[in-house]
């Protein structure tokens, strides 16, 4: 927990930097993380990390430098020496052909609207009990694995541009459980997310597994021949796809560099199906809040794709400076809007004949960003559906297609949305989530390969 003395130390260091003519931003990041990992029906890792980082950026005319220190800093003198070191580094750097921009924090904020002390201090035994309940209720003969990350992230940001500061504290958790048949080798998965201690419930996962298990237990795997199929994509798959679609199509830097699949498009062009709308929406309750953009603006809802039209590009402060554009108040909070389809996808596809249901895409990558070509394979709970009835599980199948085809050939979209946790724990704790429909039905999806196994 950050104390007032630490805040004072940081603001006093900021003032000292300003007095010495140094243009700097100082960002404090403290995490209190816990992760329980499950493998072979056992706790395979139970880990706690309490880490404090200080990020310093200094702008010196056309030059810049950054430094991160992981460890305790206890005095203004110590922290200011670090700022001076970065200042020297920036001074010795090479001048750029545009002016790097110092973050200007717009307002004084103290935010903890998504903070739950109960989750921050969640006893690991609670996690052990939830997993135990799942094993017991669904069946001890299956092989279970999973992970459950939870914790708090506390940040405090100041810059020499003004006297404003932002303090933000939130909690988050990401739960996953994988059920694998020990002989038949198929895998089912269940995900949950949230920021409150009681957001994860054993019953949710138990019900998910019990609903799909009968099909998996009673039918053999189906090998999908390469070709074009109607495909229902589930929320995990939509999350990955829409994330890559907008970050390679609607990020200002990518567009300016002519790297992405929208390089030859302009704002207002029809680029996707009219039923597809995507916002950067920090107000969406499904998504972890982010109060400031990288330029220091208070974040707000921004359109990126509006009814299939190219509606907006997002610019960070330095890209905006380089390309002479205005920085945008984006939060990185993706929200794809729902449609009017029945929340039960089986009802929604009952007149569609043969359909593949692919809830998650494993290891997606982009062989050709200019054409928006992606590839990845089905995993977890993927099934063949005929006339609205689940017929059999499908073997690991590869999709290789274009974003413009996937989101250009949408037949229907669920009327319900769900939060998908997109946090990773590389480096520091950085909670992230997107809000997406629970399913979308797409025509003509290219399956390019299929294994003879799950």
């Amino acid at each position: 927990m950050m104390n007032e003395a630490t805040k004072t130390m940081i603001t006093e260091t900021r003032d000292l930097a300003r007095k010495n003519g140094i243009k700097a931003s100082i960002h404090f990041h403290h995490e209190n993380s816990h992760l329980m990992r499950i493998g072979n029906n056992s706790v395979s890792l139970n880990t706690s990390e309490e880490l404090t980082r200080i990020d310093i950026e200094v702008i010196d005319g056309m030059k810049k430098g950054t430094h991160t220190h992981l460890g305790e800093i206890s005095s203004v003198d110590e922290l200011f020496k670090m700022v001076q070191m970065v200042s020297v580094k920036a001074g010795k750097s090479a001048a750029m052909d545009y002016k790097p921009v110092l973050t200007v924090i717009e307002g004084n904020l103290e935010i903890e609207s998504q903070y739950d002390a109960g989750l921050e201090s969640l006893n690991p035994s609670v996690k052990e009990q939830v997993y135990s309940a799942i094993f017991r209720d669904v069946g001890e003969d299956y092989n279970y694995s999973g992970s459950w990350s939870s914790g708090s992230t506390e940040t405090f940001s100041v810059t020499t541009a003004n006297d404003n500061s932002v303090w933000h504290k939130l909690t988050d958790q990401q739960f996953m459980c994988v059920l694998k048949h020990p002989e038949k080798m198929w895998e089912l998965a269940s995900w949950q997310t949230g920021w409150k201690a009681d957001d994860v419930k054993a019953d949710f996962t138990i019900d998910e597994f019990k609903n799909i298990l009968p099909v998996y237990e009673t039918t053999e795997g189906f090998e999908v021949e390469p070709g074009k199929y109607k495909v229902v994509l589930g929320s995990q798959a939509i999350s990955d796809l829409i994330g890559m679609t907008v970050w390679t199509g609607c990020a200002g830097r990518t567009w300016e560099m002519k790297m992405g699949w929208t390089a030859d498009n302009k704002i207002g062009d029809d680029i996707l199906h009219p039923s597809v709308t995507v916002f950067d929406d920090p107000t969406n309750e499904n998504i972890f809040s982010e109060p400031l953009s990288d330029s220091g603006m208070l974040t707000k809802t921004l359109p990126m794709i509006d009814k299939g039209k190219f509606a907006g590009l997002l610019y960070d402060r330095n890209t905006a400076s380089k390309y002479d554009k205005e920085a945008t108040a984006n939060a990185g909070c993706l929200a794809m809007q729902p449609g009017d389809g029945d929340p039960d996808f089986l009802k929604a596809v009952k007149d569609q004949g043969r359909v593949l249901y692919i809830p998650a895409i494993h290891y997606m990558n982009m062989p050709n960003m200019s054409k928006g070509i992606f590839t990845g394979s089905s995993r977890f709970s993927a099934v063949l559906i005929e006339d609205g009835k689940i017929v059999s599980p499908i073997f690991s199948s590869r999709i290789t297609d274009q974003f413009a085809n996937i989101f250009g050939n949408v037949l229907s979209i669920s009327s319900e949305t769900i939060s998908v946790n997109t946090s990773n724990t590389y480096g520091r704790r950085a909670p992230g989530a997107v809000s997406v429909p629970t399913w979308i039905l797409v025509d003509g999806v290219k399956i390019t390969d299929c294994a003879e196994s799950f």
Partner: protein
Amino acid sequence: MSIFNDLKEAVTRNIGRVMDAGAQYSDVRWYEDDSSEMLMLLDGNLEGNDTTVESGLGVRVLYGGAWGFAATSQIVNVDTCFDRALANAVSASKLVKVKLDMGTMDGHTGSYTSPFKIDPIDVSLSEKVDFLKGVDDSLTEDWILRRMLRVQLQRMIIHFWSSEGTYTQKKLINTFAHMTVMALDSDRQMQRRSKSLFCETGGTRGWEMLTKPALWSGHAERVKKELKEVLVAPELEYGKRSVILLPGQGHLQVHETIGHPLELDRILGYELSYAGGSFVNLDSFGKLKYGSDKLSVSAYGSIVNSPGTFGFDAEGTPERDYLLIDKGILVDCLTSRAMISEANQRAGRKVFTESGGASRSTAFYRAPIDRMTNVNILPGDDGTLKDIIATTEDGIIVDNPTSWSIGSNREHFHFGCEIAWEVKNGEITRVLRNPSYQGHTVEFYNNLSAVGDESSWVVEQVENCGKGEPNQVMELGHGLPVIKFDNVISGERK
């Protein structure tokens, strides 16, 4: 007293304390210094000028057959960190089906230092920037739209203590560099060509490695020339043909479809919720025909100057040179100590005899897991690249990945590459763009038809292998020659 002596006393006392409390085993890693620097020059602008310094303590406790781990960046809190690791282990032990066991290892001491002449962290920023500016100048052409140079430098000083009485100390130096040039082709698709810094046989790992033209900067003219050829090249048509992988591409093929599936924690199912599993099982060892007779693969490989060479792993086990695949037959895997006892217990026989020294961790605040060290294809007897081309009727040569996507059990894969050269009747006929190929791992390696000799064997560096939860990035190397596979589906289906 010095920080080291204070810490050693506190660590020794706390190891005794948790062992007295019933722990089976405990170890501690203290990162005295974990410094890194990233410089990125994009179109001549120094967009990345970042340094990071980390220091702290990671404690593991094995209690009741279960791991507990805790880390702190405050080394004054050693007692608290041990308390938390022990509490986590006790809590974990309530839900354990197969009790983990470390086996036995005699306590020992040792030290290791990466071979280097100039510590890259100590080189002045001005010298680094001047060097990169020089390389950037050599890449600059009117027709090139994007130039990117990225350098990553690392210095780690790590101390390790265990309840068995082992103490090791190591100083690791790593130098990575990548150059990429990009331009729009005749269809306005962005094409790229790149070159990464690689290791010379018997070389070093310091700043001097980066400034040796033969290993990196001297490739600038070739990289530009090949990009120019790609821009006007026809697209690779879909079909089955031979595919010759240059080391720039082959190392990622080996990494994804030999290295990862042979990590024992993946085989035992401990990565299912994130990275995935493996098509290999405990019955596969000694039986599975992983590839043709031409395929022999080693771990570590006694390579002195690779990022996958580190002296002692994160359990204090010395690195060990051994075969993973012997003339096509799967014989061993990448292991840590605890995974071996579980595997043997499950198999009901002694599948593995000793740790592969492959327990690694990305930082003090991450628990060690099974990782690759150096995973290498041994040189073959099919001659030079020229010799292999001469024996190819219909094929392509490919280099450097643009994308990689692998099935969750590593049973199938799809790779996109920067460039292809068409080979017809033993000769290179033209350059092709947007090459890709896909396959099923075991079938693919059984179609391995040629392995180059020492003349094409190099050690490629990997600086960003991701695995584990919490996520961990790891550095490693792959030594390999030119390799040829037959009957490979390549190009994209229309």
